[in-house]
């Protein structure tokens, strides 16, 4: 028996805020791929098949996974390779490089001779050693003698953790709000839509800085929630919040279009309640969009985290993140560019890989969709 496509999944037309959003029908896909090839295949299987054919997207997925795995292995790197913890300040340390003892930070000082200062300049960290120092300082040291490679990996853990977690929280909140808003309509829809508009009215970075700075002073302490100012949950909360309308608004549009379709009426006639309709009927029909939006929002969340941390409103020093590392390294760009350079490369690789994979995923799930995350 030929599997009937789930009703309306690829047929809905919704408004995504500023541009029209169109999904394919299964029939159109069949026409593109040949009816016999899709016979008996679910849309997910078909999407998987298309994704597997997109080697560029898969390659960048591989790059992203490689970055994630490297960052997850940071403790192993410290225990087996560098032996320098992420926040360990070693200003006076000496390291053996190719058999010679070298100061991690060049040593200087001042002597007063006849009332005049005689200065020996110091304070410049060693550069990348690439293994000449027995695994230590492979990517060099920062101004406090900390191992850049170690901080790069731990910084990546923080940046990725914040990016992925905030994207997940943002997606969950957005989906719930979009479903509730579109399903109930009326005053509920008006309130939630205005809430989306309110956040949308502020540029993401500006709102993020405002919230991040305010919360990083004393943390968040309301009712049972106590988050200290240096906690990673502060940037996670901020980033989750500022991106809500960027997922919520397009999803609300899609759900609105599905709200009055026959399969919803059928479910209602069978006695299904609002919660069941929203999460068992409507949600599966927008799942592909949610998935694509999630991958794109992860990249944006990582970028936002980096930006906020660079400006001091995200991850708090001395904890590393790619953003704080670039910020710290920016004042030593001339003499120790490695401090900023490697986190910059890591960010570029991660965001590029997520975006390319996200585009591939979108093409696979819905070759004609126009989902984009755009923000000011």
């Amino acid at each position, binding site marked *: 028996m030929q599997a009937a496509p789930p009703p309306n999944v690829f047929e809905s037309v919704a408004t995504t805020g500023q541009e029209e959003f169109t999904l394919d029908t299964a029939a159109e896909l069949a026409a593109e791929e040949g009816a016999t090839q899709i016979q008996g295949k679910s849309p997910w299987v078909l999407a998987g098949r298309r994704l597997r054919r997109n080697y560029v997207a898969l390659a960048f997925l591989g790059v992203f996974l490689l970055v994630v795995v490297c960052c997850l292995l940071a403790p192993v790197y410290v225990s087996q390779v560098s032996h320098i913890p992420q926040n*360990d300040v070693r*200003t*006076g340390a000496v390291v053996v490089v190719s058999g010679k003892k070298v100061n991690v930070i060049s040593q200087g000082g001042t002597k007063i001779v006849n009332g005049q*200062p005689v200065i020996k300049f110091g304070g410049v960290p060693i550069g990348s050693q690439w293994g000449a120092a027995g695994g230590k300082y492979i990517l060099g040291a920062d101004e406090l003698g900390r191992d850049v490679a170690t901080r790069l990996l731990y910084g990546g853990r923080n940046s990725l953790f914040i990016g992925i977690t905030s994207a997940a929280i943002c997606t969950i909140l957005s989906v719930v709000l979009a479903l509730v808003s579109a399903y109930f309509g009326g005053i509920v829809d008006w309130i939630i839509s205005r809430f989306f508009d309110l956040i949308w009215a502020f540029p993401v970075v500006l709102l993020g800085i405002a919230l991040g700075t305010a919360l990083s002073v004393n943390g968040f302490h309301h009712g049972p929630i106590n988050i200290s100012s240096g906690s990673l949950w502060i940037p996670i909360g901020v980033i989750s919040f500022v991106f809500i309308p960027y997922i919520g608004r397009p999803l609300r549009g899609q759900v609105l279009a599905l709200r009055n379709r026959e399969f919803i009426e059928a479910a209602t006639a069978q006695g299904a309640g609002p919660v069941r309709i929203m999460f068992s009927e409507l949600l599966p029909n927008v799942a592909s969009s949610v998935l694509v939006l999630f991958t794109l929002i992860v990249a944006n969340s990582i970028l936002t985290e980096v930006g906020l941390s660079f400006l001091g409103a995200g991850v708090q020093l001395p904890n590393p993140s790619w953003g704080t590392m670039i910020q710290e390294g920016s*004042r030593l*760009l001339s*003499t120790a560019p490695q401090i900023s350079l490697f986190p910059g490369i890591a960010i570029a690789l991660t965001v590029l890989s997520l975006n390319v994979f996200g585009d591939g995923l979108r093409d696979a799930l819905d070759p004609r969709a126009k989902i984009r995350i755009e923000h000011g």
Partner: protein
Amino acid sequence: MRSKRGTSVAIAAVVAAGLALVVSACGGGSSGGSNNTTSAPAGKTFPTLKVVWGTTDYLDPGLSYRLASWQLFQDVYLGLVVKAHVSCQTDNCAKIEPGLATTTGKVTDGGKDFEFTLRKGIKYSNGEPVKASDFKATIIRDFKLNSPGIGFFSNIVGVDACEANPTKCSDISGIVTDDTAGTVEIKLKTPESDFLYILSIPFTAVVPASTPQKDTENPPPAANGPYYITSYNPSKSFTIKRNPNWKKNEIPAVPNGNPDTIQGTMTDDQSQSAQLVASGQYMYNQNLLPVDRLSFYKQKYPDQIKFFTTPSTYYFFMNTRLAPFDNLKARQAVNYAIDRQQLVNLRGGLGVPTWNFLPPSYPQYKKITPTPYPYDLQKAKQLVQQSGTAGQKVTVYTISDVAVDLSTGEYLQSQLNKIGWKASLKPIAGANYFTIVGNQSTKAQIGFTDWFEDFPYPSDWFNVLLNGERITKVHNNNYGNVDVKSANKEMNRLASLPPDQALSASTNAAWAKVDRTLIVDHAAVAPYLNGILTSFFSSKMNPDCDVFTDNQDDLAQFCLK
């Protein structure tokens, strides 16, 4: 005063300063017609001086307690007396000279009564005449502003009501003025050896009585010096122009100034500031050069950079009212845990490690020997254990936008973690930092601070910074709330000696003992270096004109090649 510049300096001429104190305060005073004029030759004037400046807290002389502001004030806001505008490298820069007053004052009643007569015809930049009553109004305004300088006035007769309720201050009976005669009489409760110096700092710089009794910044209060501030955009820019009402050479000790206009751009980014001057867009960099590029700049611009020692001490305050630093062993642990040589190195080498609170340029300085707290992490750990405070949370405060201060804070936080506390870092923007940590409600536990002398006498260090009787709720300078009763008593005694005893050998030894007591017996603070400052000029400027007074370059005397 505090600085964000990074490092400080030692001055060679401070020894002579004390002598000036005695000479000046012993009555008579030098005449206003002193031949020690610093007026610039007319041929050195030029239209515009463009400078890069560090951000500051306020640009109101009643409120600011920062080097960046005071450097501008020296040619804008004058007091009854002024510090000599001469180089500490070549002259006695600690000398007090007549400012708005005709002499350095007549001192009577055993050092308890100071009387001054104003010069005639001096006008503010807004055209108002400078009146004797403006001095009293200025001091009252300081109280109403809750100025960080009001502690300097506690010895004036009749100030008690103002101290009890600063914002309601309406009169100080110990200041008697006569606008007709142009006289100002200040009566003190006890003799005060440093009072003449106090009259030379910006908190006592006279502003019109009509000045609003609130933070007045754009434009700042009317000036009585050769320049006035025409505009100020906090943390961004300022413009200073010649005071149209300044008569050439009307105060011999104050230079008429070379630039007609001074345009300042404010930033704390040391790399950016240096680059702006190196590229020739600006002519002087007030910020410290970036520490990692000192060698590069010195090599590339050898004749455009100067290094100066200043009387300053960089130290960590520890709040003795809060755990764990209410415990002596905890404070000692901090002192053992910091490697002073490494803290100097964080500043690119611009500094000399110290264990004393008082800088070595003072005649009262006596190096504490043997070194009281050699770097010893194990001992620090033991002390933390013995104090019973291991595992406690500690927040380290530091300045976020000055690279070396941030690194210093990170260093301290790391060391505190190593010795058994759970330390976190609280970076705060430099423009607000000292105001925030000086507010008791912040409950700052430990953090970075520095001190550049206001005037060259130890009372400016111990009484201002470590005297428990001068702790205030806001604008507190004693961040650690250090309150050692015996030391307070001794500081008060020494500060109230008659001027002729202020620099005696026994007095100097007594100050040195206070230093030792506070550092060795009480570990009241953790001093770590006396610093060096840099002055960087563009190729258009002639660095030979530079006059570096105790803490700063005198912009008015800059000249072109």
